[in-house]
């Protein structure tokens, strides 16, 4: 059950990663500054990537419908997480937050 859930968890990992990066900007920046926010971004990204790599690796060899779908969703999730992280590298953090 847990493994099935984890295999299909790729989109969820992307969603949580996205939510943490966006939400933390408002909650962390104003109180603890941009360094703390950078740590949050790094931590969340590493965690999401770990989940996604696990999903991709554990489904890569599978041939069933659920495995193939989970594998492809894992790759899509990886792309999504990397895309979401790109702005954090290019735009200064905590600028314009009240």
């Amino acid at each position: 059950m847990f493994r099935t859930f984890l295999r299909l968890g790729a989109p969820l990992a992307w969603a949580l990663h996205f939510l943490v990066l966006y939400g933390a900007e408002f909650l962390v920046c104003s109180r603890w500054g941009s360094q703390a926010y950078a740590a949050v971004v790094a931590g969340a990204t590493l965690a999401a990537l770990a989940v996604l790599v696990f999903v991709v690796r554990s489904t890569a060899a599978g041939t069933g419908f659920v495995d193939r779908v989970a594998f492809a969703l894992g790759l899509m999730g990886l792309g999504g997480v990397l895309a979401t992280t790109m702005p954090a590298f290019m735009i200064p953090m905590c600028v314009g937050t009240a």
Partner: protein
Amino acid sequence: MTRAATATGEYPNDLPRPEGELERLEAAWELPKGWRIVTAVNNTVIGYFYIATAFGFFVLAGILALLMRTQLAVPDNTFLGQETYNQIFTMHGTVMMFLFAVPAVEAMGVLLLPQMLGARDLPFPRLGAFAFWAYLIGGLVFFCTLFVGLAPSGGWFMYPPLTSERFSPGVGADFWLLGIGFIEISAIAGAIEIIVGVLRTRAPGMTLDRMPIFAWTMLVFAGMVVFAFPAVILATILLELERAFDWPFFIAERGGDPLLWQHLFWFFGHPEVYIIFLPAAGMVSMIVPAMAQTSMVGHRLIVVALIATGFFSFGLWVHHMFTTGLPALSLGFFSAASMAVSVPSGLQVFAWIATIAAGRLRLTAASLFVLGFLFIFTLGGLTGVMVAMVPFDWQAHDTYFVVAHFHYVLVGGMVFPLLCAFYYWAPAFSRRPLSERMGKSAFWLIFIGFNVAFFPMHISGLIGMPRRVYSYPAGLGWDLPNLISTVGAFIVAAGILVVLADFLRNLRPTLTKSAGDVWKGGTLEWLENHTYGARSVPHVDSREPLWTHPRMSEDVKKGRYYLPGTMTGGRETIVTSPVEAVPQYLMRLPGPGWPHLIAAVFTAAFFLLLTVKAVALALACGGIVIAAMIAWMWSSDPASAGEADIGAGISLPTYVAGPTHPSWWAMVVVLLVAGALYLSYVFGYLYLWTVSPATWPTTPISMPSWPVTCLIVSGVALAAATRLLGSSRLLFALALACGIGALLVGLALDAWTQWQSGLRPSASGYAAMVYANAVLQAQIAGVVTAMGAFTLARLVAGRLDADRRVVFDNLALLWGYAIGEAALGLLLTHGFPRVAG
């Protein structure tokens, strides 16, 4: 699965079929005669009504568009006045989005899904019928407000403070909030029906991998409705509370924030675009293979694309708020997600092209609409990538460029596929197919007209024309593109007229003598259909069973497959397991009736009367609704009729409880809706805190010990009632009554403590949020109470016992959820101020 039907000639049931079997099946599914057809609940009948109504609203909103284009044909025009124009553009957007697009795709699902999945009907026919009638009546009254000048004029996304009591004092905004809020509820009812239908009523053997793409899209569609619509329902509740009782959720001076509305609205609004587009893409994925006579290339990739789109589309909402002054990095995140979501769409485009290449595309009217769709939607997607680029959007946002963009996406992505679907599926539901010649002329008129109308809008937007202007001055270079756009709009209208004329000439709805499989499609909706769907339910072992088994249509008609007649004498459908589609249960379905219809009429009346502040009358209507719903639900959950043999030695129970029963799944979906609504509220609460933390209390009120105790009591009573149902009726009734009573007392005590502390909802955004929690909790608790009373009545009437317990199982789910939500509410309203302060 014991014996499966195979091509070797082994079938679940033998021939010849017993005498009278077909007649009994026909009798069970007979339609009400004459005007009583309004009491019908068959998915086909409701599907027809639904599509006709949705298309009717499309034509009405299209006429509004023509009025606007006439006004904008020349600069400084006086054809329409300012207020009239503002009402018209608001209604055009609102009607197209809420009364046409969403209902139209939902209607296609209602009409097609059971046929395509090999079910006899949807699992909750009366719920589907209720949703339709509520939508029809609510929608018509809402539209008619335009004729008396009471229509809303705040734009289809209704931004406060423009739509607040102060700046929009009339009832127009209330009509929008209550009318649309209520139609959204009807959309959610449809979504529940579709989710359970797709997951639980597929033909035996139709595993998820073999499920048609259209069913996949409807599943993703319904899932998205479940998570997206609650956000806008919450927003409408909050804004209506603000308008009616001055609770300042969106009033900046008192610690509210106008942007809260935008967050909530677009958390719904952006997924909404995909909610509309995905089912349309699903239709295309059915039609392209049929027209090219080959399987869809990349079937699994498309499934992945659909799921990915469903998720990514929830990460785009700020994409409509790039100019509100949010931090640059936030905008960057949403820009990235906006890019990510275009990948799955691009994948689908190339999969359709690959399928066309793999087969030979017959150039029918439907194929033309597919080609038009591919061109227009691709262009709309490309401009979508442009507006996802934040700096470009700073210029393009709220201009005619955006108007052009979303019409390319929505008309290209939804109207073209819908027209395509009409031409493709008409023979399955009409005595005659539609005319190919008229279809092709209509296509060319609509395709050319559309591009003439909307392409120039890209230009008028970039050279400075904002959207939603009722007039513009000469000399800014906008005159010519606007004139061209107006000409194009009328060409589109001519094309739609041709379609309507074709309907009049050729569309002859029938449930018994349809023209049938003229395109040689591969999926089950092309079996010979009757009021009961197909005569027998085939065993599915491929994605295109009719191509794999050329004799299937004939064998199905002879009754060689599962369930060739009625086993219990009434309407029934096979319930299968969600992933592998193994038969589990023979579900009995209700026939025609009045209660759901009466409930729909008076639900609409209730909301509309509330809008015009006729509270007493509204309450009377509410009473009738409750009475009608009790009458409706009373006949549900019939006692077991023993085992039923559906063929191949498979004997199915006619009564199940717990997670095997479809209503358990429906209730779980309801809980997801309620959970999404409450999470939206939690977001709103925390969001207002980030905006104006100063309005949060520094010294929180006393700990809510009594409410917590009440919740614990309620939880214990729930556990007790679950055990006592089998043993003692009296103790069960006592546990039920006490438990629900404790829940109500706990919630009331908490609200009372807040009130006693001097907190008033109109004081600040914080206070309003605290009482909004009470309102949301009261809604759920109210439903739990009503269901509890109903359960007790069933107990007294002897319709509830240890075996026949579905009614209680459903109550238990909701009751447990209500306790959880109440606990979360206490944690938030009492715990958060302590942590934050």
